[in-house]
């Protein structure tokens, strides 16, 4: 499985009273990784809307393994699972940059709706082509 890596830094305002990166911020870092991946395949939210779709998240999981502190450089790794159904599941890992300690890993699942808010049961047309390219990239040998 191929992952793309994006770098970020834990900001002062992202740590809690105990000096650890607050758990909710990992969702924002997942989003940074997802956007970096989607940008490569012309699947950014605005581009999805141009195709006539929106992709709300319906599930999110995250396991926290190690704390990060203010100023720590982090790496966000992102990939997408092979879709068995008309939904996209992204997988994420957040690592410390200096020694690649795993801080957290998680998943999000998004379904596709048309901009008229009707659920999409199968990927078709240009949407299918772009998703195929994304999935192929993440699963090429």
């Amino acid at each position: 499985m191929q992952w793309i890596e994006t770098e970020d830094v834990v900001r002062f305002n992202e740590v809690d009273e105990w000096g650890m990166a607050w758990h909710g911020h990992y969702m924002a870092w997942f989003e940074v990784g997802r956007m970096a991946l989607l940008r490569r395949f012309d699947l950014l939210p605005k581009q999805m809307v141009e195709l006539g779709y929106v992709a709300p998240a319906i599930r999110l999981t995250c396991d926290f393994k190690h704390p990060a502190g203010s100023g720590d450089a982090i790496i966000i790794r992102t990939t997408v699972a092979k879709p068995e159904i008309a939904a996209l599941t992204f997988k994420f890992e957040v690592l410390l940059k200096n020694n690649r300690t795993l801080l957290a890993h998680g998943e999000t699942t998004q379904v596709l709706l048309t901009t008229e808010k009707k659920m999409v049961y199968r990927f078709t047309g240009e949407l299918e082509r772009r998703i195929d390219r994304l999935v192929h990239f993440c699963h090429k040998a």
Partner: protein
Amino acid sequence: MEEIINNTNKLCEFLKRMIIDTLRLEDISVEDIETDAPLFREGLGLDSIDALELVVAIEKIFHIIIEDEDVGRKAFASLRALATFIQQEKQES
């Protein structure tokens, strides 16, 4: 399979088993699924991701494509509605 499709009672039983297996409904038995109750929300309580899994199962088993939510709303109205939908699609094909 043709014999099952042409017999509404058998088809309903088959579909109940398919739903339980596809969605891994461990606490639900075939007897728990009412033939005329809604499958989603207030009935069996299925959700949107369940619909996507059922769409794939129906395509694999019956080679019937449920294109979108408009068709799905009709097909998934109840277990009986799903059986009727499958019988109609097979008659037309």
